[in-house]
């Protein structure tokens, strides 16, 4: 039976959310995590992601040696929060913790950080046996998984399974399908001319972009594929009298099926290229693979482990597909099979964010249970 000190857990969470840690400013959080876990035997290293990204700290990689011979597993959660995330004043209500309505709460993902810290305390106190544990606290998750994407691939060497603790959904939900994402940056070229005097000498890049976009399959393409035109910009305000020679478009495509992702990306590329050719101009297109997919069948070993852990704590496991990306996607891309487990937080990225006390409690039990189900 896993026992968790509920009061200590809530206290820890209340303190962690009051440490400012918007993306690239996670230093205080990182220091706090080290101070808490080093005395418990976790050995930390900090990587150079902070230097690469211009942040105040890198990713923290903590290692707790195993007490018995079992496969090594990795847990990950992220230290940064979205804005407005400074000066958080958590309010403890009867069954939940909220912010005061002026900031986010930051349970995304400090509920995860709290669970990892408490997990270490619990297995020490109760002398639970475990295999080698790696605790990865990332930076800059909220700004495009930039922290995890800066990881040295050797971090995952020798590890059997990874578990991110950073998904929406009730405790017990398990993300087994999540899309890979391609970012598509497009520059549509045209030809400048005076709009009133000799527009026929010009090629309107705005017109070319509009024709291209109007031919595209976008939004929900199928049950595992989406695409979006996120940003468009062209022209120099307030000049209406110039036929614009350059429009920039940033788009993305996602699918948990890599063939479909490729197909959708090619489709979008061809719409731009073909339309540009029709207008006797060109479009420069760059495709960036942002992160890979999560894709596990329900009978995969890692899914069985997660399900057993959920059952152990008295919940009903449910696997599901998400359309968003998380550090779990990046770790899968590095070759580490990684699931994303639901934390129970609600209304994240808004000032109405909250988490139930019961979910904080169950979250710790879940993480401890995973260490016991390997």
């Amino acid at each position, binding site marked *: 039976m896993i026992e968790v000190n509920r009061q200590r857990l809530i206290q820890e969470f209340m303190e962690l959310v009051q440490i400012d840690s918007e993306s690239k400013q996670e230093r205080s959080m990182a220091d706090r995590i080290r101070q808490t876990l080093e005395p418990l035997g976790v050995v930390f290293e900090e990587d150079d992601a902070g230097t690469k990204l211009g942040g105040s700290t890198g990713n923290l990689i903590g290692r707790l040696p195993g007490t018995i011979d079992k496969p090594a597993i990795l847990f990950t959660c992220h230290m940064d929060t979205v804005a407005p995330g400074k000066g958080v004043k958590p309010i403890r209500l009867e069954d939940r913790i909220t912010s005061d309505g002026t900031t986010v709460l930051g349970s995304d993902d400090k509920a995860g950080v709290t669970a990892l810290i408490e997990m270490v305390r619990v297995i020490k106190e109760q002398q639970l046996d475990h295999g080698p544990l790696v605790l990865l606290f990332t930076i800059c998750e909220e700004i495009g998984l930039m922290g995890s994407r800066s990881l040295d691939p050797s971090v995952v060497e020798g590890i059997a399974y990874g578990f991110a603790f950073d998904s929406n959904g009730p405790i017990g939900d398990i993300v087994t399908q999540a*899309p890979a*994402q391609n*970012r598509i940056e497009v520059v549509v070229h045209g030809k400048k001319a*005076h*709009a*009133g*005097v*000799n*527009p*026929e000498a*010009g090629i*309107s890049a*705005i*017109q070319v*972009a*509009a*024709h*291209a*976009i*109007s031919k*595209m399959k*976008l*939004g*929900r393409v199928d049950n595992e594929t*989406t*695409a*979006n*035109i*996120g*940003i*468009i*910009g*062209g*022209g*120099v*305000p*307030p*000049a*209406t*009298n*110039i*036929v*614009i020679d350059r*429009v920039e478009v*940033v*788009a*993305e495509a*996602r699918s948990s099926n890599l063939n479909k992702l490729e197909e959708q990306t090619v489709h979008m590329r061809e719409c731009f290229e073909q339309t540009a050719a029709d207008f006797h101009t060109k479009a420069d297109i760059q495709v960036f693979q942002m992160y890979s997919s999560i894709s596990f069948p329900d009978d995969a070993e890692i899914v069985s482990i997660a399900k057993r852990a959920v059952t152990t704590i008295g919940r009903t496991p449910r696997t599901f597909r*998400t*359309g*968003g*990306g998380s550090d779990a996607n990046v770790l899968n891309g590095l070759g580490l099979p990684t699931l994303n487990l639901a934390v129970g937080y609600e209304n994240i990225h808004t000032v109405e964010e909250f988490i139930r006390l019961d979910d904080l409690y169950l979250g710790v039990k879940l993480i401890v249970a995973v260490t016991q189900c390997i």
Partner: protein
Amino acid sequence: MTYPIKRERILKTFRTLVEFNTPSGQERDVADWLSAAMNQLGFEVTEDGAGRNIRSNLAEVDKAVHDDRPAGNLICRKKGTAEGPTLLFSSHMDTVVPNPNVKVIETDGVLHTDKNTILGADDKAGITAMLEAAHVLAESKMEHPDLEFIFTVSEETGLDGARQLDASELKAKAAFNMDSGGPPDEIIYAAPAETDFHIKIKGKAAHSGVNPEDGINAIVVAAHAISKLQVGRIDEETTVNIGIISGGCKTNMVPDSVEIIGEARSLSQDKLAEQLANIQSAFHRAADKFQAEVDIKELPMYEGYVMKASDEVVQLAQSACRKIGLSPKLAPRGGGSDANVYNQKGIPCVNVGVGAKDDHTVQEQVKIDHLLQAASLILGIIECSLQPQQEQQHEPEQEQHLAEAL
């Protein structure tokens, strides 16, 4: 016929003028200099309140880059020495950017810059021509009718200075705007009306990967609308352009807003209205299709004008051209100028070339010969205005040309 214009003085005036850094709203220094110069040449100079009025209509952010004591239009009057219709000549003091530290370089009779800045011949070539004509009038015994020389502000931002002119204070029956990019033998007898449109499309935000089906992509709505529009050259007297588009801030959000700014121009008011109606309908249809909202504001910028070859102002410009040995050509122009505003205010006005080529770019240049011709042309117009309108040899060819251009 030649007039006693002075090449060296023209070059010096031009160089002096382009050295003033004069973005729209920052014409104070050049206005003070011009005001003093015109005064010395026997003109009575008044400055109107255009600068203050324009400034008071600006957003706070734009006020920061405007002079806090902005110059108005300069209205310079000289009493006539002979009977004749009052003539108005006009040019504008502001320039587009980049304009600071203009270095004028002369190559084979052409003035240009080191390509770091524009030259500013648009429209300091026009001012130069007017100043030179004023010098000649002051020095010679040449007769002239009452004259109104006007130097406007904020032309480049949409003819804002000229709009502020009080027409009831002006007596001129014929006006000549010295501000066309063509050579001085090109007389702009027609220019389009322009209406700008500001369009905002409101869609609905959603996470692009999780629930894009709950969102409405404003960029897609805009793309559908624009793809249904004819833009560019619509017909020989009508153009449409989308100049600016901007929307969205991150790739993982279905963007919920996009803004579009564009313009339509036509020599024909009906055709202009037709294009604006097409634009309205294309955007409203696309918005309906995607259940988005669209807001379209139409901002009439200026009215157009079309002169007949027999109009006095056109006749005067043509006669003056011949008088200085050039063969005049009548041409329409696709752009607006202060000439549109004078016509709108009831003062018949043609736009006259001062030779600024590739204006609004760092390649801008002007031929010295064109500077000289523009000054002579002004003097020619003044002289012709005092002569009884000789029977113009009827020029069927010319009328034909006009009919075609229309």
